[in-house]
């Protein structure tokens, strides 16, 4: 326990040192930060936008913007700071996509398979069929997320996908806590309804009832 705490402490201290070095112009230090946070940033972008190519663009823009605006990071949670940047990048992408005639829904295949294999290794009892079902479920969840209004989607991705608490989410989104609570509740409700319609098509094991 103490060791774990020490590890976490060291990690935080290391991160502070990296950030300071990056602010002083050391690009290698910044790239090490990129390595630590790029999965988180990409996940957030993908869940928000729902499409791989746009999520890729948003992630790239996020890190370029972060590098250019390092001076404006005044301490605190580096993750929260990054999430604010990627949220803005996602809104830009969403606005851009709305101008396009068609918005294709991207299957989770590549990313899904990669993660699924890890889960499969954890749980050897899982059969390939279950893997397929899991992927189908993820696709369904993403489709229901895409159907949400942007602000609702952001709230639920912040809290449920990224694991932020209400206060952090309120800070990142720049809205009062009451607004966050309201949006979150309504988002979850809509998701429940959406998944129920899918559930009728899905195998019994995944139904919510």
């Amino acid at each position, binding site marked *: 326990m103490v060791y774990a705490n020490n590890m976490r402490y060291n990690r935080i201290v290391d991160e502070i040192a990296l950030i300071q070095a990056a602010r002083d112009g050391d690009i290698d230090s910044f790239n090490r930060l990129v390595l630590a946070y790029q*999965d988180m940033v990409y996940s957030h972008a993908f869940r928000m936008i729902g499409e791989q190519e746009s999520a890729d663009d948003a992630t790239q823009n996020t890190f370029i913007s972060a590098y250019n605006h390092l001076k404006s990071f005044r301490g605190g949670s580096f993750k929260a700071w990054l999430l604010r940047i990627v949220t803005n990048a996602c809104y830009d992408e969403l606005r851009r996509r709305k101008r396009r005639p068609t918005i294709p829904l991207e299957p989770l295949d590549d990313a899904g398979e990669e993660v699924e294999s890890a889960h499969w290794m954890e749980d050897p009892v899982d059969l390939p069929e279950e893997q397929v079902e899991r992927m189908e479920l993820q696709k369904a969840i993403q489709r229901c997320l895409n159907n949400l209004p942007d602000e609702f989607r952001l709230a639920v991705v912040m809290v449920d996908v990224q694991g932020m*608490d209400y206060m952090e989410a309120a800070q990142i989104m720049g809205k009062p806590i009451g607004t966050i*609570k309201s949006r979150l509740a309504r988002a979850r409700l809509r998701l429940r309804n959406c998944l129920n319609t899918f559930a009728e098509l899905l195998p019994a094991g995944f139904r919510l009832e």
Partner: protein
Amino acid sequence: MNNQFTTRDYELISAYLDNQLSAKDREQFEIRLKAEPALRKELQEIGKTRTLLRNLPKLKAPHNYFIKVEPVRAKSSLRLAPIFGVISAIASIILILVIFGSTLFSDAGPVAMAPAPQSQPTTQVLQSETERSMPKVVTPTLEAPSVMLAAPGSDTTPPSASENLASQTPPGETAAPTPTTIHIYAYLPTATPENGLTGGKERIVTTQQACEAYLRGEGYPSAADLANCLTPTGEVSQSLQGILSSSTPTPTITASPTITVTLTPTETPTPTATPSPTETPSPSPIPTTSPTPVPSHTPEASLKLAPDFGSESATQAPSPGAAQGASNASSSVQDQSAASRNTSDVSFLSYLLLSIEISLAVIAVIAGVVAIILRIWAR
């Protein structure tokens, strides 16, 4: 499904799931849950949705998003490149304008170049300065400038000149070496070939009279007359020039002596006679000149004088700008002596012009090359 519950209810459910309710609110909510099975069902379903979301697999980035250094460098150099491109373009444009402009104004040959309006002031000046005994000098015609000839026998001017001319002396083109054009204004208002001839004759007569008068110390002939007041040997002209060293230098003046020299030694009738048929430009005797009228004399005489003024005329020759337009020519007619100063001024101008052109060309080339190099390097 949602009809019986309010938004507030769902907020309670959501907050309860996240453990965000206050102790008091949580107690009240749990009491309600026990009492309302529908509420329990909602709680369960929304709870499962929340769990599914939380269990979504963390996605991995499809590739690394490292920052590379190069783009920053390229940005700064790319920012500079357009500036050099603009400099090069501007220098090229100015260079073209300068070359074109200098060619435009320097080339007196093509008659049309001489701005007609300018002739008037100059001829008027001439008039004012010269208390003329010349009978017909008075009104300068607008066509006078057209008299200017680039080279003896050049065809461009003749047609217009022949109509208007009173007296001209095409400058001593005689020999190829001095293409300078000397312009002497025709004073005869209405010049026709017949008039020209007669007017020329009359002019020659009056000129001679004026020269004689001057040489006797009685009068002060006009510059044009002075130019004509030359002995066959040309010595007089030189001495006259010495006397008249005052000024208004013009290349034309130097040339005119040449011409006149060639002409005067020959009988007056010859120049008048021969030139007119051969050279359209000058029905008047004097101007005709050099080239055609008396081939034997002209070249020698002109050559004689030419070396004297060789430096001046030579400098004039190469510089197209020298023959500065009819206006200059007419004003220069007045003063012979200042010719040397004139030529030096003109040569200075021509060198200045040349140096400007060269420097513009160099700037344009260097800026263009730098812009290209920056763009290639920025890649």
